[in-house]
C-alpha cells in the first residue's frame, strides 16, 4: 500500500550511506589530493565569474529596491545595512549555492554517470580503488572549501554593487555606506553566512555524486541523473536554508 514511498526512502537511505562513507574517507587513507585540487579548480575557479556577476547584480537590485522605500522615510543612509544583511544572511549563500548546484551538481552527476554506464566505476573497484574515496570524497572536500569562499566573494561584490547605487543615486558617501554595512553585521550573521554555504556544499557534492553513481540505462540515464541532481540539490538547499534560518532566528 505504501509502495510509492519505497523509492524515495531507498534513495534517502543510499544518500545516508554514501554520506557516511564519503565523510569517513576524509580521515582514511589513501588520500587523492590531486583530485581534490582539480575539483577545487573546477568548482571554485570555474564558478567564480558567474557567482561574482550574480552577486553584483543582487547587490544592485537590493539597493535599487530599498532606495525608494528608504527615501520616503528619509533613511537613505541605512541602505548599506540592508544590502549587507540580506546578502550575508540569505542572498549570498543561497544564490551562490543554487548557481554552483546548476553548474557543479549537474557536472558531477553527468561525469560520474557516464563513468557508471561505461563501467569505469566497476573498473575502479576491480582495479583496487574505492570509487567513493577516489571520486566522491575529493568533490565533497573541494565543495566544502570553495563554496564558503565563493559566498564571501559574492557577498562582498554584492555590497560593492549596492555601494555603486547608493553613491550614484542616493549620494551616500563611501564611509557612510561601508560603516553601516559593516557595523550592522553580528557574529550571528557571519555564523549563519558561513554555516549555510558549508551545508549547501555538502548537499551539492553528495546529491550530485549520488545521482551520478546510481545512474542506470545508458546515455539517457545520464541525462536523467543530471536533471535529478540539479532539481533535488536545489530543493534541499532551500529546505536546509529554511531550517538554518529558523534556528538562527530563534537564537
Amino acid at each position, binding site marked *: 500500500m505504501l509502495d510509492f514511498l519505497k523509492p524515495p526512502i531507498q534513495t534517502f537511505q543510499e544518500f545516508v550511506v554514501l554520506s557516511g562513507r564519503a565523510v569517513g574517507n576524509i580521515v582514511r587513507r589513501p588520500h587523492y589530493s590531486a583530485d581534490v585540487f582539480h575539483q577545487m579548480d573546477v568548482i571554485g575557479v570555474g564558478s567564480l565569474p558567474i557567482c561574482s556577476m550574480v552577486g553584483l547584480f543582487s547587490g544592485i537590485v537590493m539597493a535599487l529596491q530599498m532606495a525608494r522605500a528608504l527615501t520616503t522615510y528619509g533613511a537613505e543612509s541605512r541602505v548599506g545595512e540592508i544590502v549587507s544583511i540580506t546578502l550575508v544572511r540569505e542572498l549570498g549563500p543561497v544564490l551562490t549555492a543554487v548557481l554552483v548546484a546548476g553548474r557543479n551538481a549537474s557536472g558531477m552527476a553527468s561525469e560520474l554517470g557516464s563513468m557508471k554506464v561505461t563501467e569505469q566505476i566497476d573498473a575502479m*573497484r*576491480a582495479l583496487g580503488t*574505492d570509487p567513493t574515496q577516489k571520486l566522491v570524497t575529493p568533490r565533497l572536500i573541494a565543495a566544502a572549501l570553495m563554496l564558503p569562499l565563493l559566498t564571501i566573494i559574492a557577498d562582498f561584490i554584492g555590497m560593492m554593487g549596492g555601494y555603486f547605487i547608493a553613491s550614484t543615486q542616493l549620494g551616500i558617501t563611501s564611509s557612510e555606506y561601508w560603516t553601516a554595512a559593516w557595523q550592522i553585521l553580528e557574529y550571528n550573521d557571519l555564523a549563519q553566512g558561513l554555516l549555510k554555504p558549508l551545508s549547501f556544499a555538502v548537499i551539492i557534492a553528495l546529491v550530485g555524486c549520488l545521482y551520478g553513481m546510481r545512474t542506470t540505462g545508458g546515455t539517457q540515464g545520464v541525462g536523467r541523473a543530471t536533471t535529478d541532481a540539479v532539481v533535488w540539490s536545489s530543493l534541499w538547499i532551500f529546505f536546509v536554508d529554511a531550517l538554518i534560518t529558523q534556528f538562527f532566528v530563534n537564537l
Partner: protein
Amino acid sequence: MDAASTIVCFEDVSLRFGDTPALDHVSFQMGAGETRVVFGAAGSGKTVLLKVAVGLVKPDSGRVFLLGQEITCMRETELFDLRARVGILFQEGGLFDSLNVAENVSYPLENQRTLRSGNRSNEARVRESLEFVELAHTLDKFPSELSGGMRRRVGIARAVVTEPALELYDSPTAGLDPITAHTIITLILKERDLRNTATIMVTHRYQDGQLMANFRYNPNSGEIERAPRGSAETVDTKFLIMQEGRLVFEGSETEFLANQDPYVRKFARPGAS
C-alpha cells in the same frame, strides 16, 4: 572438485533486480587453466554472472567462491586483494577517459596493494603489456582518440598487465568487424596459452567459441592454429548457455553441437546471434 580448489565456483546463486531475475539458481565451477565460453541472448545475465564472480555485485542467495575463497560475504577491502589476481575486460570498455593509455594500463599496478611491490618497474610492465597487444606506440593517446578495436586491445593490456590467474572477457568482439574480432580472439588465446590463465569469455559469436575450443596460440608463428584433438585446450573448454538468468546448458563442444534444445541450437551455428 571441492569449492576450495576451484578458480570460480557458483553454488545455487540467485539475484534479482526488482522483478527481473538476473541470475536464477546458477551453479557451475571451473578449475585452474580451464576455459568457459558463455553464450546467451541480450539481458540473459552474462554480464551479471561475471560481476558476481568477482564480487562487484552481491547475490541475493547462494554462495560464490573466487580463487578458492568464499566471497559471498567478503568485505570490499579483502576483495581488492583477490581481484588483484583477476583481469577483467568490461563490455563497455571501462577505460578511464581522463587517463591516457599508459596511465590506464598502469592503474592496477599503482592502486592494487598486493601488486605495488613488484621487482620490475611499472613502466616496463606497462610497455610489455602494450607490446603484447601490439599497441606500444599509443602510450600517450587518450581512449577517445582510439578506434573501437584499439580500445578493446588497451582493455586487454590492462587486464593482463597484472599477470592474473583468471581472465574475464565480457563480449570482447561485440561491435567489431570480423578481422578485428579475430585479432582480439588471437590475443585472448595468446594470454591463455602462454600463461595458462583460466578464462571466461562471454560472447554472442559462434566463431569465438569455436576458436576458444579448438585453437591454440603458436608462439613461433604468432598466429593461432588448430589444436590437436584431445589436447588440453580442447578438453578444458566448456560452453555455458544462459537464458533469462538460468544456466540452461553446460557441456563440452560435442555435447553443445549435439544438443537439440532450440534455444541452445541458436548459438551452435555460424551467423547466429
